């Protein structure tokens, strides 16, 4: 997966407090996910990009899912993005089941004969261990997702069962990967996600983080509203409300973009934008353009 564009990061205003909290989360164990909250244009996506950059610098695996007005990400898309953004070799069990529920006439290649699929251990190289029996997928078996989105037409499986089974196949894979390398999942613009997907994120991802069922996994949820998770999540999460810029922040931003200090300009921009990051960026675009034209 590609990292954030250098052009975006170049103009990043110092959000060192927020970045420090992110770094603390990666280094510690108490806080396992952050919630970035702020209105449109307050810099959530840019801050997320900076956090992704920090992951890249650290060599930490990461995956990002960003909702938009025309892009409907479902729980399945979220799981697929996490798989594709990290190491898909750990997710054969999951991919096998995705194909089973979406491809006509597909037969499972990885059978978990007895017991609970959630107790499967995913090992290196695509091996799966369950009840001390190793099921070796083998190099001759290639399981590639066809990225179909509808349930297969030759079965009659209820959606809620599909959600359950795919999630139960996904979690051991994620757990195995996270035990080998820390992973951070970034979920951006959650105000555009639909109720069903939000519900899945809360019931599965957020509770797995709360209960520390996947050590090594961390997440950043971003959106215009609080997630409304309940008090049991207080100890393991931290909500960060992005504040508007102050004059000094705007001055720093001007220095980065224009290589000059102009306190009077920063004060004026602050008076016109109330420190709103997006409006500040537009103002500085305007200033730069005006200077070039003059």
């Amino acid at each position: 997966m590609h990292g954030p564009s250098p052009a975006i990061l170049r103009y990043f205003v110092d959000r060192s407090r927020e970045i420090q909290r992110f770094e603390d989360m990666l280094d510690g164990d108490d806080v396992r996910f952050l919630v970035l909250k702020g209105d449109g244009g307050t810099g959530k996506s840019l801050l997320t990009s900076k956090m992704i950059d920090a992951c890249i610098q650290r060599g930490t695996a990461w995956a990002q899912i960003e909702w938009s007005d025309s892009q409907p990400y479902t729980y399945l898309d979220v799981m697929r993005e996490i798989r594709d953004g990290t190491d898909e070799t750990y997710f054969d069990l999951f991919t096998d089941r995705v194909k089973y529920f979406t491809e006509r006439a597909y037969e499972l290649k990885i059978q978990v004969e007895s017991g609970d699929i959630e107790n499967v251990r995913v090992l290196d190289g695509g091996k799966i261990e369950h009840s001390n029996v190793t099921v070796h997928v083998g190099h001759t078996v290639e399981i590639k997702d066809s990225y179909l989105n509808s349930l297969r037409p030759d079965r009659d499986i209820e959606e809620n069962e599909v959600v359950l089974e795919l999630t139960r196949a996904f979690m051991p894979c994620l757990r195995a990967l996270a035990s080998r390398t820390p992973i951070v999942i970034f979920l951006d613009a959650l105000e555009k996600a639909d109720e069903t997907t939000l519900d899945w994120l809360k019931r599965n991802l957020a509770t797995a983080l709360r209960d520390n069922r996947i050590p090594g996994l961390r997440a950043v949820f971003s959106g215009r509203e609080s997630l409304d998770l309940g008090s049991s999540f207080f100890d393991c999460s931290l909500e960060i409300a992005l504040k508007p810029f102050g004059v000094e922040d705007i001055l720093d931003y001007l220095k980065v973009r224009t290589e000059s200090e102009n306190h009077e300009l920063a004060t004026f921009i602050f008076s016109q934008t109330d420190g709103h990051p997006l409006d500040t960026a537009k103002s500085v675009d305007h200033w730069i353009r005006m200077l070039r034209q003059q």
Partner: protein
Amino acid sequence: MSATDGNGRDYLQLFKQSYERARSEGPTGDVSLDALLMSMTPAARDLVLLLSVPHWFNDRLVSLLSRATEPTVDEGEAYEALRGEIHSLSFVRPHGRGFALHDAVRARLRASFIARAPQRLRDISTRLVDYLAARHAEEQREELEWERVYHLVACDEEQGLTEFDGVFMTARQARRTTVCHTLAEMLAEQSELLSERAQPWIDYYRGLVLYDQHQRRTAGSVFEALAAGQVEPPLSGRIYLYQGLSAEAHEDWPRAESIYASAIDQLNATDDKAVLARLHQRLAEVHIRENHLKKAEAAAKRSLELNEQTGDQFGLALNRRALGRIRTMLYDPNAARRELGASMVAMDAAGRRFAKATIHTDLAKLEQSVQRLEQAEEHFNAAIDLKVEGGDNFGLAILYADLGQLKLIQRRFDEAQRAFDRSLSLFRRFGDRLNEARTMHNKSLVHEQSREVEEAIACEEKAIAMLADEGRSADSFQKRLDRLRRKQRWRPRPLRIALLAGLILGLLVLYVILYAIVSDPY
């Protein structure tokens, strides 16, 4: 960069003046955005406005739309400069399909565009429709089709809404609720470009999304509000249908009945046989619930007539099923069998193989009710086979529970327990504590019938605990548990049995002696 030039002009003063101009003359009402736009070249300013029409853009789209700018800039150095100017804007961000404007900026620009030049926006939408149709033909990506239909709604309302309905219903039939949610919101974005007549469609689709997300109460409110407004067929029929279904979801049968009856009255004069057939069928189902069997039969038959006219085989199958259930409740098993058999045939004709499991279940319950238990078992097994083939494990859990009940009636207690155990393990997998509790209660019944009172008590206690976990009342289960415990206390112990046997034997011996004494003349 310096704030003054060699001529001593104060750029900051110029900058401040530009804000004053933006405040008084700006097109969008967002001062920072307007000041920026007013500082751009006319072609760049115009292009930014045009780029607010699609949700995303790439170089091909930029090139396409630059040919529509005023003045047109579509080639050479001027075009490259224009393109560079766009990409340098801080509110242009990466998108999966290229780039997108920040949604707050896009919303402002679109609103301004709609207010000042709606016809031009429609013209741009027309170009985008053609472009996206060509791209979709190349790539076959569904999101291109969604975007195309989104723009079609803006430039050709009637055709756009027709195609939108097709795209939405296709996603809905595939149970892609998230896609439906996105499509509904995309349509809502176009509300200012739609006529008054078209506005209710926006809330209708939102209501469907809520309904499919099981937010039935909120969905019901949406449909109520729509029904109270001036809505014409064919939309009105659909609204009434979902208004009624929302009431049914809350088991408000009288309300559902009233909605369907009123809707039928209003729509009888229209030619929308398909919707009328569904309304009659739902009315029949509600009457069945209320045990108004004559009315149910009349409604189902009327729906049948309409479905025969439209050739809707699935509708016919549902009608026949309803009639079969009515006949079952009227203790007319032969007629019930005929109707349910006809339903089975219609399901096959409709290609709804897996839905036949429901008919088999109805037939099983019919046969069970007339004590033809072997036939009942055959139908349950046929339903189970279909569920296994279809992979519907939740449906299978329910069927195993039904089969267990049958085995209990047949006094095949081991088989009953096996069926209930299968049911229990499936419900457990789904975390369905309510049905787990019911199944555990049924297991208790089997144990009691097998004279295993301790086991019966243990199962009933577990069932009660499960209901308590769910915050549900367990009164009836508790009463049964109390009875079982009394039974356990009064159950004869071995010593009591021996004493009782001894007493009976003693009494018998005494009787024989007395009889002998009385009957002996000597």
